[in-house]
């Protein structure tokens, strides 16, 4: 499906586009004026080889008496070989012809004319011309091969350096800037990268970086793996732009537009090949990055899962089993008549039970924290009665709030809520526990469940130390504990964080309000409710 849009086909219809100023900036290097370039590439070497012939002639004229006549032609081979190895075939042939003419003109009788008297001299001269042309050809071919080898070597060197640089790329933006830099450095040309967006279109980096025609072409492209390659000739700047997709095996990361300047079709082809080699190298690296990224993610997830399992197993099994044995044994002891009848002994058993429950609460907190940190909490939602949730939470924490007077009140017609009851119970329990911790024993903790405008609010109010504005701000942090109570109230600071995470997972929020330090705190769990239940009530009968 890959079709080439030939650059030659584009020549005709680009003229009408007005030239932007910026386009010319990038191609200054080769726009140094074609006449001068032609002069430097073609005329200069010719002049130099002719100069060599002149030098040889002057030298021979000076050494006329010493050098035998039949060696003259051999001396003239020197400029030919020099020209062939330095400047190529044409200067060498020019040197051969000039040399022949010089021998004839200066040294073969009649001297100072271009005619020859002796036919042997003529053969001699023709032989010289033949040898000179052949050797110039051989020498220049050698030179070309050497040149090609050197160029190949530099190219390989560059490519090697490029792939080394790619190996150091760990993100896709790194890679893209590496490609851009590399192309700019080695080809001395601009490269503009159009990043693929989520919707399959390409983003233009900054308007005007590439010719309008290139931008328009990119805008009409849709990102997919079989993206065609384009070659566009931009007339105003007299340069050729290549458009190539940069992609890994499965995803297109963008399109790169490279200005490869102007030149003969052969040199355009060479540059195109080079750009393609670079992009191929880059797409291999992209593949590696894609795979690497996926593997990193999988590894992280596996580690998190392992950690979670280990923590969960250790906490629940290794710690809870001994607790179970302690609590069970204590409860058996407590039911023995001898102990049941002795108040002092019975209070000891109760103390054991209380401590076991406290420890179990801590373990539950750690299990919950592990659950919250290693994976997102996925609530198992089910329609529940808010009253059941409040009662269960209070009952679960009954021993922790035993020294307070807990007052529960419910709105008359509470709607059902679609939540994971266990998570809400746990969160409400945390709020209760905090209320008990931060308010004097004997004071009232009131728990209220009410319905208000499509929401169900479960609130816990205490008559305790209250909360300052600053503390309120810090409450959501993972292990926030107020500096005011660090020394006097035990705790890990995990509770509130877990509670708010659980509530958020159920689509609700926790709101804290306090009339200030010393005036008590109200913590409210706000959950979305459904009112459709009233119609269900009727259908029930």
């Amino acid at each position, binding site marked *: 499906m890959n079709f080439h849009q030939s650059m030659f086909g584009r020549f005709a219809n680009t003229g009408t586009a007005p030239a932007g100023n910026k386009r010319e900036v990038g191609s200054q290097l080769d726009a140094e004026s074609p006449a001068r370039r032609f002069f430097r590439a073609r005329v200069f070497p010719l002049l130099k080889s002719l100069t060599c012939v002149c030098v040889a002639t002057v030298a021979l004229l000076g050494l006329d008496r010493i050098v035998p006549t039949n060696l003259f032609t051999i001396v003239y081979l020197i400029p030919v070989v020099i020209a062939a190895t330095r400047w190529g075939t044409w200067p060498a042939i020019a040197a051969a012809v000039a040399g022949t003419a010089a021998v004839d003109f200066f040294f073969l009788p009649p001297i100072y004319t271009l005619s020859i008297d002796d036919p042997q001299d003529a053969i001699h001269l023709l032989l010289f011309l033949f040898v000179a042309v052949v050797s110039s050809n051989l020498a220049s071919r050698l030179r070309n091969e050497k040149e090609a080898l050197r160029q190949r070597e530099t190219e390989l060197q560059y490519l090697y350096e490029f792939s080394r640089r790619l190996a150091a790329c760990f993100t896709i933006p790194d890679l893209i800037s590496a490609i851009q830099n590399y192309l700019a450095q080695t080809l001395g040309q601009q490269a503009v990268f159009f990043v693929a967006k989520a919707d399959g279109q390409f983003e233009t980096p900054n308007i005007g970086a590439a010719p309008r025609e290139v931008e328009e072409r990119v805008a009409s492209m849709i990102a997919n793996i079989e993206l065609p390659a384009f070659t566009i000739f931009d007339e105003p700047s007299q340069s050729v732009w290549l458009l190539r997709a940069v992609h890994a095996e499965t995803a297109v990361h963008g399109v790169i537009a490279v200005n490869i300047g102007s030149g003969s079709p052969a040199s355009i082809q060479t540059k195109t090949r080079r750009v393609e080699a670079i992009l191929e190298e880059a797409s291999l690296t992209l593949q590696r990055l894609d795979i690497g990224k996926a593997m990193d993610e999988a590894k992280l997830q596996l580690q998190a899962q392992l950690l979670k399992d280990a923590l969960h197993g250790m906490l629940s099994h290794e710690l809870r089993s001994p607790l*179970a044995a302690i609590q069970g044994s204590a*409860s058996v002891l407590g039911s023995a008549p001898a102990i049941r009848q002795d108040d002092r002994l019975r209070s000891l058993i109760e103390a054991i039970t209380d401590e076991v429950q406290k420890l179990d609460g801590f373990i539950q907190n750690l299990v919950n924290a592990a659950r919250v940190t290693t994976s997102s909490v996925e609530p198992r939602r089910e329609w529940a*009665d808010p009253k059941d949730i409040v009662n269960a939470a209070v009952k679960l924490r009954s021993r922790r709030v035993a020294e307070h007077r807990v007052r529960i009140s419910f709105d008359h017609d509470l709607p059902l809520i679609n939540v994971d009851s*266990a998570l809400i119970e746990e969160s409400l329990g945390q709020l209760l526990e905090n209320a008990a911790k931060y308010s004097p024993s004997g004071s009232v903790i009131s728990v209220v469940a009410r319905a208000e405008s499509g929401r169900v609010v479960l609130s816990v109010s205490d008559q305790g130390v209250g909360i300052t504005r600053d503390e309120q701000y810090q409450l959501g942090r993972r292990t926030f504990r107020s500096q005011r109570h660090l020394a006097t109230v035990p705790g890990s600071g995990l509770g509130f964080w877990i509670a708010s995470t659980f509530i958020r997972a159920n689509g609700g929020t926790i709101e804290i309000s306090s009339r200030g330090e010393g005036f008590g705190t109200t913590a409210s769990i706000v959950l979305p409710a459904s009112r459709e*239940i009233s119609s269900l009530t009727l259908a029930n009968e």
Partner: protein
Amino acid sequence: MSKSVNVVLVIDDEPKIRRFLRAGFELHGFEVHEAENAAEGLKLATFNAPDLIVLDLDLPDMHGGEVLERIRSWSNVPIIILSVESSEEQKVRLLKLGADDYVVKPFGMAELLARAEAALRRYFKSSTESSVVVAGPLSVDLVTRSVSLDNQQIRLTRKEYRLMHILATHVGLVVTHDQLLKEIWTGNQRDNIQYLRILVRKLRQKIEHDPNDPRLLITESGVGYRLQSRLES
């Protein structure tokens, strides 16, 4: 209970747990057999014909759930599950597999004994026994279909009685939402737990002294409901 001495089989790999379970059950007149792994437990369950099995889920050689399934394939003996895992999903799954009830570690002996007695009562209940189920101030006559609270007869709607009946026949034991929905409703209503929640609210209005603080019809969150056999002090 029909036998003079009930035999309980404890299958748990923790010696210290077995030790207090033995003490607790023996203090209440049970005869106790112990197994420290699934293989031994299955063998004892087959040959010693226990009246009750207390089964720990984390056994070294086999998961407790599988032990439960194997025993259920040939026996209706009451089975109570011990577990450190307290996920509602797992509880429901075990109840569906045929467990009579579960207790989450750590627990007190009184709680386990209450479940054990409820399970035994249901297991040994025979037609010759009284058809009246008593739960604290509440009594339910399963034959005459009358319900009374503090000796005052109360009127229930058909669905309310259906719920009452199922809970009374399982008095002391948890009954899952699924089971209740399937036995009370028909058609697509039986998947809708909201009906059940509302029905429970109404029933509580009639049988609880304080419907906002239920003591008889207890919610087991995420699992089901339980009719307490006696009021907690």
